[in-house]
């Protein structure tokens, strides 16, 4: 793992991994969504709206998983000072924020026919909204640090502190009264019928691969921007050096 913290090695790995993740992710996602939309029977209680499960659950998982990734990359940056760790955390931020927004939007759309309301200020929904704001704050902070040539330590600390929200989201439906149902999938156990569970797991895998592809593309873009900036800075210094060394002319 430490070997791939080298940007050159990472780029050679990412060049073939990106299309592979995007292709496999697209295939699995389309298969799971077609399965969920056409072949799964309506639920006894939720009716046809149960089909929203196949996009809502993967997006919730990726919103929370994305911030967990930021926290892991931030730890690697603060402890081992991996050159790629800051880039990985920045690469995860936008895809993580998009999937958190999808989770909130699809949850709201699902809430209207099943709960009779678009939104309630309960523990689960509010902590998920806080996660969206944390992503926005992280993106702004990381961009500002990179633009001003500042340290990437501050966004890393923010990434670690924000990770406190992840167990809060996870346990919110257990700790507080909520319209949201309790966890259906826990380690080794599932309260979901097999008819829904199989396409759901395929959808989670498919969306996760697409997420991975998007993160790799963001990282490649950030590395390319840094390499171009470094080369331009080096060239500017090289151009200045002979002028500084030359004797001042004039009468």
């Amino acid at each position: 793992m430490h070997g791939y913290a080298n940007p050159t090695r990472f780029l050679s790995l990412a060049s073939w991994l990106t299309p592979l993740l995007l292709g496999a992710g697209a295939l699995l996602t389309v298969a799971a969504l077609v399965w969920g939309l056409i072949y799964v029977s309506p639920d006894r209680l939720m009716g046809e709206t149960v089909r929203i499960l196949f996009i809502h659950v993967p997006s919730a998982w990726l919103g929370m998983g994305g911030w967990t990734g930021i926290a892991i990359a931030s730890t690697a940056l603060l402890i081992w000072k991996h050159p790629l760790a800051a880039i990985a955390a920045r690469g995860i931020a936008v895809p993580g924020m998009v999937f958190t927004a999808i989770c909130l939007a699809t949850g709201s759309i699902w809430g209207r026919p099943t709960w009779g309301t678009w939104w309630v200020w309960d523990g689960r929904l509010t902590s998920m909204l806080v996660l969206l704001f944390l992503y926005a704050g992280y993106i702004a902070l990381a961009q500002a640090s990179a633009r001003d040539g500042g340290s990437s330590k501050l966004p890393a600390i923010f990434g670690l502190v924000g990770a406190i929200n992840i167990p809060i989201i996870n346990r919110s439906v257990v700790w507080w009264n909520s319209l949201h149902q309790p966890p259906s999938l826990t380690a080794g156990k599932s309260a979901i019928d097999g008819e829904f569970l199989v396409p759901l797991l395929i959808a989670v895998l498919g969306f996760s691969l697409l997420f991975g592809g998007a993160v790799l593309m963001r990282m490649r873009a950030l590395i390319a921007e840094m390499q171009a900036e470094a080369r331009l800075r080096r060239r500017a210094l090289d151009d200045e050096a002979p002028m500084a060394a030359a004797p001042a002319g004039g009468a």
Partner: protein
Amino acid sequence: MREALDQWDFVIAAYVVAIGATLALIAWAWHAMRVAEKRRDEVKRR
């Protein structure tokens, strides 16, 4: 009076939001990567 809700309208709306946002994310990430890599290669060639 009860409001009549067609459940499929909600299902379709949720799928349009999710698929649209995912495709937009992939397209934006791909475009940003291509632009950045092209710029790096141009700077390298100059």
